[in-house]
């Protein structure tokens, strides 16, 4: 099912984007005419600028000004040889500008585009929608099986309990520390907690969202994040040698993790109550 979802996504994006990228014929024609006028006008302006520069250039800049003029002439000659224009460049530019069609209005452009690109675009949108539906079903199935398997399960309570344990130990370690005391070991412990326990939990939060839904997840994970932020505050204050602030932040972090724990237990109880009884 996963392969089919990805296949539909790829086909849908390709069809949809290609269809959307198409332009109405009237618009393409308008752009080509405008492009010709702009190309000739730019060539003419480049030559005029180069000629002006040569006329006003002091002796030390004359050589580079001559080179610029020669380059402009070469570019014009290339256009002439390719058959882009004949005769006088300025006249050709003016004629090209006069020949530019009226710009299609946004509504005309939209209707014209629907005519040429509407079908592939529409098919693409439908394919993406179908692929997304399949992918969401597959994700729900995978996360629920990961949550029930021991290897893939994200254990929120275990992670929060670890955090609370480390915070309690840290609290004891810094309880009597004076200002500016060295705290490298304590901070290393906080880093390890972040890297080994909290970050993996954050990475696996998709399972939690799939399990409880975004609204419920937001309640306990918001509290968890506040605990994490206050843990970072403990780290910063210890680095700056300000242990009283670290102690306050540590208490705030503990409270947040405990709040997250309680909210998570509540969410689990609610989902267990809502789940149908086994046969």
């Amino acid at each position, binding site marked *: 099912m996963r392969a089919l979802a990805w296949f539909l996504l790829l086909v849908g994006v390709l069809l949809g984007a290609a269809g959307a990228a198409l332009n109405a014929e009237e618009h393409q024609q308008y752009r080509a005419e405008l492009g010709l006028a702009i190309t000739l006008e730019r060539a003419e302006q480049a030559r005029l600028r180069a000629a002006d520069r040569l006329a006003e250039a002091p002796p030390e800049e004359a050589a580079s000004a001559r080179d610029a003029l020669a380059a402009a002439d070469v570019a014009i000659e290339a256009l002439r040889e390719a058959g882009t224009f004949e005769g006088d460049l300025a006249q050709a530019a003016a004629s090209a500008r006069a020949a530019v069609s009226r*710009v299609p209005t946004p509504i005309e452009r939209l209707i014209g585009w629907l005519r040429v690109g509407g079908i592939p675009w529409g098919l693409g949108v439908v394919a993406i929608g179908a692929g997304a539906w399949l992918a969401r079903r597959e994700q729900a199935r995978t996360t629920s099986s990961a949550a029930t398997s021991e290897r893939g399960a994200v254990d929120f309570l275990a992670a929060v309990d670890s955090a609370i344990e480390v915070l309690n130990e840290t609290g004891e370690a810094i309880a009597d520390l004076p*200002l500016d005391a060295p705290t490298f070991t304590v901070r290393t412990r906080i880093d390890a907690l972040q890297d080994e326990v909290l970050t993996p939990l954050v990475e696996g939060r998709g399972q939690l969202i799939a399990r409880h839904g975004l609204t419920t997840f937001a309640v306990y994970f918001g509290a968890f994040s506040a605990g994490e932020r206050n843990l970072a505050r403990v*780290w910063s204050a210890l680095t700056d040698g300000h242990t009283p602030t670290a102690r306050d932040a540590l208490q705030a972090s503990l409270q947040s993790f405990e709040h997250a724990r309680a909210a998570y237990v509540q969410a689990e109880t609610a989902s267990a109550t809502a789940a149908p009884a086994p046969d």
Partner: protein
Amino acid sequence: MNRAPTRSYPELSVVGVALGALQGVVMTAAFVYIALKLGFGLAGSTVAAIIGFTLLRGVLRRRSIIENNINQTVASGINTASAGVVFTLPALLLLSVDDPSLQGYPIGALIFAAIAGSLMGIVLIIPLRKQMVELERLRFPSGIAVGTLLRSPGEGLTQGALLMVGAAVAAALTLGVNLAFVPEELDLGGLFALPPWLPIALYVSAANLGAGLLSGKGGLPFAAGGVLAWWVISPIAVGAGWVEPIAPLPATVQSGWMAGEIYAEMLRPLGIGLLIGGALAGVFSALPAVTGAMKSLAAAAKVARQRGASPEELPPKWVYAGMGGAFVLMWLSAWFAPGIGFFHALLIAVVGAVWLGLAGVIVATATGHTDISPLSGLSLIAVTLMYFLTGGNVTASILIGVAVCVAINQCADMMSDLKTGHLVGARPRDQQVAQLLLCWVGPLVAIGVLMLLWTLPPDGSPGFGPQSTACLEGTAQCLSAPQGDALQSVLAALSRGDSALDKYISGAALGGALSIFPIGGVAVLVGLAMYLPFSITLGYGVGCLISMGLGKRFGPRFVGRKLVPFAAGLIVGEALIQLAWSLGLLALGGAQ
């Protein structure tokens, strides 16, 4: 032992805020000038963090990571107005040269509009912070880079050394590019004589590579979007004759024209459409979480009041009051525009605010994933919307364009600063209060400097733009204002009725459908890839692939402890060198 504190911990301090404000004002003035001269702005957060780090920690001996975070938040919050104003307002001034009816520009209304945008950008981010930083865990590469820099005094020697190595590599590369020893773009396709519509090119930027390294697997849809656009759709478009050739034309000119047409007439507007559709779907799907976030803000405020403490986040009443105030300001500013009635102004303000909110989400999501902000495209849509809504009233269109541009820049910057705050343990409330208190400063300075430069010539000629005396004479003082000039061209095209409505609508539908797919931010990333030149997307994608490869080979701890500081160094180093280079260029230009 003595447990009583002998000093307070500096956080939302007068010194931190004052230094941030001072830096912000100086950077705003300098960046307005730089953007008029060179056409691009600079990353304010990174620069402010480096200067703050030097001044607060080095010179003033104030040891507080969090105070520096406040300083950098304030400075970049003020500075965001510079890009917002410089990308939009010059178009009105440039158009007024040939159209005397536009010369009575309502300065007061413009300032109101810019302040409204600044205020709305900040309050919009309050509920979105929980969604994007805490729940979605968007990367915000610059936010991580600044966080890594701020934390460096407490990290081990290895991390500090890696940060420095990254910064040194970035400095060498940036200098190499600026001195033309290294090309700005490695055109690998040119080596195989590939046409411009089938590009294989890498944008040479350490910061771009660093952003890719920091994003890892999450950034892959962005690279995939670029591949789809340039290696699939573009060749199909040429092969199937979807681009009308200018016949006859020399072959090299022809293929260059086709590449330009594919980008400007197909991919870029389609990318904007995808961004809109992706953001609309994202807002819709995140609505439960944002509602939950608002409820949790209210609950947290209540609990804090009961405990007699100040809440860590601003309560919802601040969000509502800020939004209401910003809306009224926007309404009034639209009403002050010539030819706009009271109720017409209300309609303009409603549409402007809705678009502003959506654009804010788009830009915060795009920055969160890639560090790249589609600022000009979103401002262009704002101006287009307003142009049609006001029946072609250029002044009113640009006025709302200024508000939107300032707001979305504020959204991206604020969210990145809040990500940094999350990493270093700052209180979001402190960051947001500091920003709110000073949200009026940036618009005032940016518009003030811009108008000063515009009216500087004593003979009444334009102070900048292609028709200014300095630019006509080709002197070093020429400020060509490329972004304003580009918006002016867009307005001229709109006045001819030239608008890619079909691409915006079809792209939005595709973006909406793509968003149903369970890959975070996929529509916004694919849209952004189509919107940008491929060389940027490819360079970023290379960074993502390297990060994934290293993660697979050495594990996530290696990525977190080794790769992140190095990549952060790449971003920090480039920002610093670009700032020094730009200021040096300006000083040399001034001396000449």
